[in-house]
């Protein structure tokens, strides 16, 4: 159980700069999620913490102590590898017991048996203990890899996409289990994933990583509602957020958001909100990218007041709901719809934007500027942090 800090950690492989000045501070007993696209450097961060890769610059601290020169064995970390890394010549039982049989973490066989069986029960694989890894499916191997970490009481659990290869049902069950277990064990856990649902569900805090740099750190809600730039906004959320390029214009007392769809110029009045308008004015924002989550786009199949006309580009089910993509010329608008609608491609659809849920980005830098309800969301995030 430990606090893990990385300070300005840099690591390169040949000419590729894998990590470019990573700073994170994982609190004791925290569930910390590293989230980012493939090749962002998530696994390299884990390897630096485990001591498998040595950073060229920067410090790795466990409980304040610099461990840069401590070898992996003596750091007392438990790691779940993405490709399982099971010992092929050993049975599942021996694989899980391996760490407890090493000279460093020596435990008597009685305790080992107890712990292995407890972990196996948790992973629902007690019937697999006598098998060899070659006789397991990928999902089963992954569970063994998890089990191998769970038998230990390490400084920190490092998990590299441990649920990626499980079937959906087991994954959901495991997700719940994992969160509960981590709370019970009271252990620090650093968890790598590229599944946004997993990140939101598990993480006390989430770090968004891209191209070897930390883009944003915050609680799930904070990152979801106040992404620090368009990249994060697009990463968090499924279906993806809509980004509408447009202009903010003064009209009479208030502002309106002007944009184009299929060549027609449209303007939506922006509901009054002091703080937001102040922020926009301070930023001197004229042109802007508006971000609007798909659930905040309303549609109708008959003409309606305040709705504008487009055509359906696609309609596809994503399980318990569906996504309609509406063609707006240069871009497409995603919106959530129920399943089982009779929709033809290219049929007319009328769309309205709930501007009072939108967020605004600088179109040049793609950085976050402000959004509606910013204050209450910020307050909510702080409240979560305290809890």
């Amino acid at each position, binding site marked *: 159980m430990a606090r893990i800090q990385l300070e300005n950690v840099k690591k390169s492989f040949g000419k590729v700069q894998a990590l470019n000045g990573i700073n994170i501070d994982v609190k004791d007993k925290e569930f910390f999620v590293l989230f980012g696209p493939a090749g962002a450097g998530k696994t390299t961060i884990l390897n630096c913490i485990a001591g498998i890769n040595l950073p060229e610059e920067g410090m790795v601290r466990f409980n304040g102590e610099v461990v840069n020169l401590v*070898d992996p064995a*003596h750091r007392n970390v438990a*790691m779940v590898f993405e490709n399982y*890394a099971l*010992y092929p010549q050993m049975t599942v039982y021996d694989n899980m017991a391996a*760490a407890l049989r090493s000279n460093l973490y020596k435990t008597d066989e009685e305790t080992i048996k107890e712990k292995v069986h407890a972990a196996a029960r948790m992973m629902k694989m007690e019937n697999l203990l006598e098998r060899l890894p070659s006789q397991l499916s990928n999902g089963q191997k992954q569970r063994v890899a998890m089990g*191998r970490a769970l038998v230990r009481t390490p400084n920190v659990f490092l998990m590299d996409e441990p649920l990626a290869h499980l079937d959906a049902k087991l994954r959901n069950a495991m997700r719940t289990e994992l969160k509960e277990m981590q709370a019970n064990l009271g252990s620090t856990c650093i968890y790598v994933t590229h599944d946004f649902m997993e990140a939101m569900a598990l993480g006390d805090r989430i770090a968004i990583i891209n191209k070897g740099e930390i883009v944003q750190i915050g609680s799930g809600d904070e990152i979801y509602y106040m992404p620090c730039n368009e990249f994060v906004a697009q990463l968090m959320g499924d279906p993806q957020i809509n980004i509408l390029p447009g202009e903010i214009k003064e009209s009479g007392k208030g502002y309106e958001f002007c944009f184009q769809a299929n060549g027609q110029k449209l303007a939506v009045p922006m509901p009054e909100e002091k703080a937001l308008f102040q922020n926009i004015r301070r930023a001197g924002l004229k042109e802007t990218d508006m971000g609007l989550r798909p659930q905040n786009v309303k549609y109708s199949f008959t003409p309606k007041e305040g709705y504008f006309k487009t055509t359906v580009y696609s309609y596809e089910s994503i399980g318990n709901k569906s996504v309609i993509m509406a063609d707006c010329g240069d871009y497409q608008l995603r919106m959530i719809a129920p399943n089982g609608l009779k929709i033809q491609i290219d049929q007319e659809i009328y769309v309205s934007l709930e501007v009072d849920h939108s967020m605004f980005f600088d179109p040049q830098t793609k950085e976050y500027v402000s959004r509606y309800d910013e204050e209450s969301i910020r307050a909510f995030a702080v409240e979560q942090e305290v809890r």
Partner: protein
Amino acid sequence: MNNGKKRLGYAVQNLLLIIYAVFALFPLIWMFIISLKSDTQVFTTTFVFTPTLSNYKEVLLRSDYVSYMIDSLIISGGAVIVSVIVGVPAAYALARYNFHRKEDLAFQILSFKFAPEILVVLPLFMIYQKLGLYDSYLGLIWVYQLISMPLLIWVVRGYFEDISVEIEYAAQVDGYTWYQIFFKMLVPLIKPGLVSAALLAFIFAWNSFTFPLILAGREIQPITVAITKYLGTDTAHYGQLAVAATVSAVPAMIFALCIQKHLVRGLSFGAVKG
């Protein structure tokens, strides 16, 4: 009808295999038959003759045959042991670490097997004379590394490359030291390759003729060189020659049978794929 056709197919298949087996084994059978003939009958009979063990008595009891065998065992066994001790770490390094001109080095090692022995043996003879390695166990074991080392390194390297490096990381994180990882985690995984490569290296070393002929011959006489003694200047004792050859094949056969299980797995690569 169909059944009959099938059976005929099997019969033809087996017949062809039997013919090939006889073809392949005939020299060995012929050698064995000759070893049981007396010197006169070697030339006058083919399959019908009066078998005699006199050749065996002559070779095994009345000559230094046993000491030649022991020389061969020491040199070949020693060569393989040295190759394993040096070659396995070398193979690991070539498989795992990236260093300057790595592939060149690996190819250089392989290229030792390309050079005809007769080409290098004369300069080696001069060098060995100067160094005092001529006609010594050490000298022969050393020069045999040309035969056994490249084979061992290249086979074992392939096995190391098949083991994912994460397995080593996992073992490190589990608290094992590098030596423990090597012997507990890696050696069991390369064992099939190591054993089969070592056996092949042993057979090549055992059969080597040019090196011991020129670099030894007085004090130390491995079996390949010693066999020529039975070819006298005036007479050729084909019977005794056959005995010497037959018996010298025995150790390799025994080893091969002992490790048969590994041999089949070891020569079909990729046995460790996780």
